[in-house]
C-alpha cells in the first residue's frame, strides 16, 4: 500500500470560527516516500494545513485524499493509522505516566494483542535510540529526549506518512543534529512544517512555500532557496549555510548535493 500512497489536496480552504482565513484554495500532490518541507511566515497556514492531513480539522471547502481514503469522519480511524502526527510541543503528546506506556497508548487503542504492543513499543523506542527512557516519567526528560519519545509514540502506530510540526524547535544543536540524522533514516513519506531552513536543506528535496493561506511556490528546495525575492516576500531568509560567511565574506558557493553536508 505504501508505494501507491499519495496525498492529494484539492482546492482546500479553511476559516477559523473567529473569521480568520487560514487556508485559501490550496492544491497539492505528494508522492509516496517523498520528503516535503512546508515553510512560510508565522500565520501563513502551515499548522492548519497539517491538521487537515489527519482529519484533526475537516474542511467543507475542498478535499484531502490520503491514498484510497478521502479525509472525512467515517474514515478517521484508517487515516489516523496511516498519518502519524508529531506535535510541536512534546508535552502535549506525552500524557501517560511513563514513556513506555505513552508509546503503547496508540497500539493499545488499535486493540492489538499485548505481545504485538510490546514488540512495537520496544522497536519504536529502539528506533529513536530511547530504549533507556522506557520507564521514566515524561516530565523528567530533557527537551531532546521528549522529542524522541514523542516521535516513538507515533512510530509505534506504524504509519506510512509522518507529519511534523516544527520538529527542531527548542532543541539544542546536538539534539537537533541527532533528530535530523534520525529523520533522514526513515523511509516514510515526510511532511515537515518548519522555520529551520537548514534542516529543510538536509532532509527535504522538495519545498512548498505558503503565504497568506496560499501556495506561493512549490518546487525543488535548491531552486526555491536560490530565489531571494520570493523568500523575502514570504518573510523567509536563505538558510545560513547558503548565506555569505560573516568572517571571510564569501559564500560557500554551491548548494549541497543530496546526502552531502556543507
Amino acid at each position: 500500500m505504501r508505494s501507491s500512497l499519495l496525498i492529494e489536496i484539492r482546492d482546500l480552504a479553511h476559516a477559523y470560527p473567529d473569521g480568520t482565513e487560514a487556508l485559501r484554495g490550496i492544491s497539492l500532490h505528494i508522492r509516496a516516500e517523498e520528503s516535503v518541507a512546508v515553510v512560510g511566515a508565522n500565520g501563513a497556514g502551515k499548522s492548519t494545513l497539517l491538521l487537515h492531513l489527519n482529519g484533526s480539522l475537516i474542511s467543507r471547502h475542498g478535499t484531502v485524499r490520503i491514498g484510497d481514503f478521502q479525509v472525512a469522519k467515517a474514515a478517521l480511524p484508517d487515516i489516523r493509522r496511516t498519518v502519524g502526527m508529531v506535535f510541536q510541543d512534546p508535552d502535549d503528546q506525552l500524557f501517560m505516566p511513563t514513556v513506555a506506556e505513552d508509546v503503547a497508548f496508540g497500539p493499545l487503542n488499535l486493540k492489538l494483542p499485548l505481545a504485538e504492543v510490546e514488540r512495537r513499543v520496544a522497536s519504536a523506542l529502539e528506533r529513536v535510540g530511547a530504549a533507556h527512557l522506557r520507564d521514566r516519567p515524561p516530565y523528567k526528560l530533557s527537551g531532546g529526549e521528549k522529542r524522541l519519545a514523542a516521535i516513538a509514540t507515533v512510530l509505534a502506530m506504524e504509519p506510512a506518512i509522518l507529519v511534523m510540526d516544527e520538529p527542531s524547535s527548542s532543541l539544542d544543536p546536538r539534539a537537533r543534529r541527532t533528530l535530523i540524522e534520525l529523520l533522514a533514516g526513515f523511509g516514510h513519506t515526510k511532511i515537515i512544517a518548519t522555520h529551520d531552513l537548514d534542516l529543510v536543506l538536509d532532509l527535504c528535496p522538495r519545498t512548498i512555500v505558503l503565504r497568506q493561506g496560499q501556495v506561493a511556490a512549490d518546487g525543488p528546495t535548491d531552486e526555491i532557496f536560490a530565489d531571494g525575492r520570493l523568500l523575502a516576500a514570504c518573510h523567509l531568509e536563505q538558510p545560513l549555510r547558503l548565506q555569505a560567511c560573516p568572517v571571510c565574506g564569501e559564500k560557500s558557493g554551491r548548494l549541497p548535493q543530496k546526502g552531502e553536508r556543507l
Partner: protein
Amino acid sequence: MSTIESAFIDLQRLDRLAACDSAVHRLDPRVKVLITLAFLVCVVSFDKYAIAGLLPFALFLTLVIGLSGIPSGFVLNRVLLAAPLALLIGLFNPVYDHQPLMRFGTLVIAGGWLSLLSLVLRFCLTVGAVLALIATTGFNAVCRALEQLGMPTVLAVQLLLLYRYLFVLVEEGLRLNRARVLRSFQGRGLGIRACSFLLGSLLLRTLDRSQRIHLAMRCRGFDGTIHTRNPLRLNGRDVLTLTIVLAALLAMRVFDGPMLLGRFVTGLMA
C-alpha cells in the same frame, strides 16, 4: 524557595520513593488501597475522647513505614507541616468542653483537651497513612487501583492527567510569576489585581493546552478509555496479606488493646 516550588520537589520525591522496592512496594496496589481505606475508617470511627485505642494504629503505621523503607523523617515532616490545620480545628474544644474526664492526683484533665489530642492524633494517623500509601505505590498505580475497585473511568483518567500535567502547570505558573516579580518594585505589581490577570492567563493557557492534548490523544485513537499494558493481577500472597491485615485492623478496632494489656499486667502483678 517558594512553598509551591518545594511542594513540587516533594511530589517528585514521592515518585522516587514509589519506585523503590520492598515487601510493601511489591503488594498489589488494590490491596494497599483497601488496607488504607480500612485503616482510615477504623481510625475515624473511634469516639471523640479516644486516645489509647488509637495507639495500636500508630504502631501499625510505624511498622508499615519501617517495612517499606521510606525514611520516617520524610513522612513525619509532612505530617507536622499539616498538623497546624488539625490544631486549628480543635482549638476551641478545651474552651467549650470542661467536663473532667481524667484525674492524675490533683491534676484534672478536661474532656476538651482529650478531644483535641485525639483529633490531632487521628489527623496525623490518616495523613501519615495516605502518604505511606502514595510513597509505596505511586499516584498512578493508586489511580489504576481505584479504577479497578469501581471508581468511574472518567474520574480515573482525570486524575491521571491531573497528576501528569500538574508538573507542566506548576512550571508554567512559576515562569509567569517570575516574570511578574522581576517587573514589580516596592510591592507594586504584586497585588491582587496583577494576580488575577496572572491566574486568568494561566487558565487560558491551560484551556489551549487541554485542547492540544485532546487532539494528540484523538490522533492516536483515544476513545475515552485508557488501556494499559499490564493489567493488575492478584497473587496468593496479596490475598493472604489483605485477609490478615484486615482482620488485625478489625481486631484493633473492636478490642481495646492497651486496656487488655494493662489488665494483663496488673493481673500478673496481683
